[in-house]
């Protein structure tokens, strides 16, 4: 007899596809926020599955800080070409040059806060009424309370104390003029689910996720990729290390881990044995205990 039971990946996939189809049906002008990281790649893959054989009904929006890994950019361009999707790039460089946000100075300078301004400008400029993101609730404390359909006011702000109740799988996308939604179809996935799904579906991901040799700088216990954007402190030196990245953000803030895992199977084995969360080595979350919540209130991803 057939077993009428979906395993956890099948259930998570069915849920995400349902959310993506609701987004296409309920909004006039939705988009996918595509970072080039594994979570947004999985979200995009799910969108491809949700609407096949029709094409993905959302443009891919990339907020380019100008501090991206070159590997991320080339991967993005290949993926867009393969899917026949539309790409929209918001440039943080341009926002800074035009004086709408100040560049941070000093050793720990990052464009992480600056990119929120560019993101909001891009959303407003293209009048996106829903932005699909690869956010997961297991990533961080503040994200644990996100809805699938997360309402943002006309200033793109998230109000965690006044979120709409979200019941069953009925999603309320009604909004006032000028407001928009962030949509998180893979809310319920964990890092392990993402990896298992990438393996199961044979999804291509940037080479940065696999162990490779590169020039690094160790700062406050975090291994950072050495690049022209990183200002060295007097006591710091560049070391050649074998590393891989668990998340892909900016070159300046994304911590690497020392690793020998150069295949998907080895990465999964490593993740299973890992005793530190993946955002634990993101310098942006280390600024304060509620750093993520504070950034989200302002309109961050």
């Amino acid at each position, binding site marked *: 007899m057939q077993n009428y039971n*979906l395993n956890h990946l099948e259930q998570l996939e069915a849920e995400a596809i349902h959310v993506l189809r609701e987004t296409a049906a309920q909004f006039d002008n939705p988009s996918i926020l595509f970072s080039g990281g594994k979570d947004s790649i999985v979200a995009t893959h799910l969108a491809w599955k949700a609407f096949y054989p029709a094409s993905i009904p959302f443009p891919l929006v990339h907020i380019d800080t100008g501090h991206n890994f070159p590997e991320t950019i080339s991967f993005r361009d290949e993926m867009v070409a393969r899917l026949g999707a539309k790409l929209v790039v918001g440039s943080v460089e341009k926002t800074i040059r035009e004086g709408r946000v100040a560049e941070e100075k000093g050793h720990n300078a990052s464009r992480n806060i600056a990119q929120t301004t560019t993101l909001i400008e891009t959303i407003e400029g293209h009048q996106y009424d829903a932005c699909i993101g690869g956010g997961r609730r297991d990533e961080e404390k503040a994200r644990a309370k996100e809805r699938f359909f997360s309402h943002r006011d006309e200033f793109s702000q998230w109000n965690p104390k006044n979120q709409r109740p*979200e*019941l069953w799988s009925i999603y309320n996308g009604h909004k006032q003029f000028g407001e928009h939604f962030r949509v998180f179809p893979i809310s319920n996935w964990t890092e392990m689910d993402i990896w298992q799904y990438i393996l199961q579906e044979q999804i291509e991901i940037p080479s940065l996720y696999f162990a490779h040799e590169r020039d690094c700088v160790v700062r406050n216990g975090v291994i950072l990729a050495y690049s022209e954007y990183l200002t060295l402190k007097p006591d710091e030196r560049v070391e050649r290390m074998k590393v891989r990245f668990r998340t892909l953000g900016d070159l300046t803030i994304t911590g690497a881990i020392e690793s020998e895992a150069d295949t998907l199977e080895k990465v999964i084995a490593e993740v299973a044995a890992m005793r530190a969360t993946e955002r634990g080595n993101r310098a942006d979350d280390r600024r304060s*205990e509620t750093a993520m919540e*504070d950034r989200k209130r302002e309109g961050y991803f």
Partner: protein
Amino acid sequence: MDLVRFITAGSVDDGKSTLIGRLLYDSKSIFEDQLDHVAKASEKKGLAHVDLALLTDGLRDEREQGITIDVAYRYFATPKRKFIIADCPGHIQYTRNMVTGASTANVALILVDARNGLTEQTHRHSFIASLLQIPHLIICINKMDLVNYDQQVYDQIVEDYRNFAAKLEVRDIQFVPVSALHGDNIVEPSTNMDWYRGSTLLYTLENCHVSSDQNMVDCRFPVQTVLRPKSDEFHDYRGYAGRVAGGIFKPGDEVVALPSGFTSKISRISLAGKEVEEAFPPMSVAIELEDDIDVSRGDMLARLNNQPTAAQDIDAIICWLSDKPMVPRTKFIIKHTSREARAMVKEVNYTLDINTLHRQEGEQDIQMNDIARVQLRTTSPLFIDPYNKNRTTGAFILIDPVSLNTVAAGVIKS
């Protein structure tokens, strides 16, 4: 691996967050840097022990107040199962969040403080679990360490609860005496309660039977959107995209499209180009039909001899979620599966006192957290089933037409 969704509910200070922290900690689902954060934060608060509750209390406001104010989702896995925990606040003004968490749960874990016994919140949470038809209830009698692990205290609470639960519609109730703070009967059997012969909490969660929670009999397929590629390769393709809400669909099955009433046969079921032999809940698929009949978003596919009720008059129980009271004669937006209409509350039959489960007839004033039996009238027919038959086609939400907020959750009686 199975996926099990459970909620935790309890009064303020029942130790809910500590219990979750303990489950995560003892099942080795906590990472070093998280534990490190919590150890630091506990020290800052001047606590002698590591406060595991800090693992789940996420937002700035509640970290300051020391209470959970919004549903937080947590994840952990054992070799047997993957769990999604909806940590629901016990604070009275946030009961709406428990309804939110309960709507998708297979299991409700209700905490009772052994020193206090059953409280108003225990009744409220149990009733909501029953109203939302969570199939399994686990009553955790917590803080057993503070009553000297006394069996009599436990037995009395179990007896009180059984008396109360006789009025509820719950299939499966289990009791576990625990101390979340010390870890008794959470993952490891307690050495302090030899008199307890039952399973630990984790074992109970790992072994409750969740696969029969879906309706596999009555075929229901709400259409979310129509896939029309209009490409050369798929020129004539027309697929109805949706998630199966009930029953098993197969190619060759005769189906009826509602509201049109046209019938056709399923020619193919697929997902991303891959054939699906049988589609059952909660699968997301695309269904193609042999005939080119008019089907669009909000329509439903069902079997000719087994259809949902097409209704404009709906008998329902609603839970009011908004801080503004219900205004009579408001024309709400009603959302039911993928269908939307306008709806008016024609009549409030009674409100429920959730402590005694007594009906208060004639009460018309509906406030936040109130539960009421109402008669709705909608502008167009909805394709409904009773909620106790189908948790998808038996559920709806009401949206305020001005604020556009979700203001009520509804379950359909008939």
